[in-house]
């Protein structure tokens, strides 16, 4: 075997190993956020876009969901024998940026530049962008969810009734389907 061929084989081996060590897929995280989005989006139709309950819901559900996501990821990492602390920080930064942009967007509604219903749609659009970027950089399973969120955003603009609930169902379904995909491709090793 020539040197060039050996080198090629070695690189193919390293590449295959790197692909096998792909990101940890934790379906429970997808199901958790599917439930939180379904309830949160539906709440807008139930109590009205300007209700304080929407803010209260997300102020509780957001941090609790983030904490549970962190806990489940660490637990899955210990089980599979792969710790990705730097990647975890990148996830947190991604969604912190979304949260910060969303909070700044509240200024539009507070100053009357945007209706509260418009603000809810804007949050969904920002979430679609965040999921798209996370899908590009961190976990490709999130790309279809970004598509569902973008569709959900359009639904909230044009559907006459139950628009946020409809968007919530769509997003929850996309998250659940992505949660189910890829299950069983990793197993406990320790």
């Amino acid at each position, binding site marked *: 075997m020539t040197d060039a061929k050996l080198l090629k084989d070695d690189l193919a081996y390293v590449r295959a190993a790197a692909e096998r060590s792909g990101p940890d897929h934790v379906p429970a995280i997808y199901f958790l956020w599917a439930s939180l989005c379904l309830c949160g989006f539906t709440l807008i139709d139930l109590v009205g876009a300007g209700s304080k309950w929407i803010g209260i819901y997300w102020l509780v559900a957001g941090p609790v969901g983030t904490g549970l996501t962190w806990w489940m990821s660490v637990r899955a990492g210990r089980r599979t*024998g792969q710790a990705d602390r730097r990647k975890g920080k990148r996830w947190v930064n991604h969604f912190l940026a979304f949260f910060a942009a969303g909070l700044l967007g509240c200024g539009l509604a507070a100053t009357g530049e945007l209706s509260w219903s418009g603000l809810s749609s804007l949050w969904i659009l920002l979430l679609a962008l965040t999921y798209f970027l996370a899908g590009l950089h961190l976990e490709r399973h999130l790309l279809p969810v970004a598509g569902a969120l973008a569709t959900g955003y359009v639904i909230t603009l044009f559907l006459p009734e139950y628009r946020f609930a409809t968007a919530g169902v769509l997003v929850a379904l996309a998250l659940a389907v992505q949660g189910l995909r890829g299950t069983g491709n990793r197993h406990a090793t320790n």
Partner: protein
Amino acid sequence: MQRTDPEVGGLEELESLKGLLDHRVRLAICILLAEHDAMSFSRLKQVLEETDGSLGTHLRKLEDGGYLAIEKSFRDRRPVTWYELTEPGRSKLRNHVSNLARLIDRVG
């Protein structure tokens, strides 16, 4: 790895590729640990599809060479050995990969 190809022989980069990372399993271990902060012995074995003995030998060589740091913990009362790339290990890997890239550029 024996290199005899006249096409690539004699290149400076080829000389610089000799060393611990010359072996594909050791190179793969370091690349995996550069991507993930820490990996257990079992996970490395699963990903690299190596036997316990072979993987253990490669890991020991890398550890002796100062590339890897080891941490032992317990999970369900069973010992788990975690491996991390050290800073010198990371810098040597960076060097090796850039030499490899230069070599590939020249060979085409």
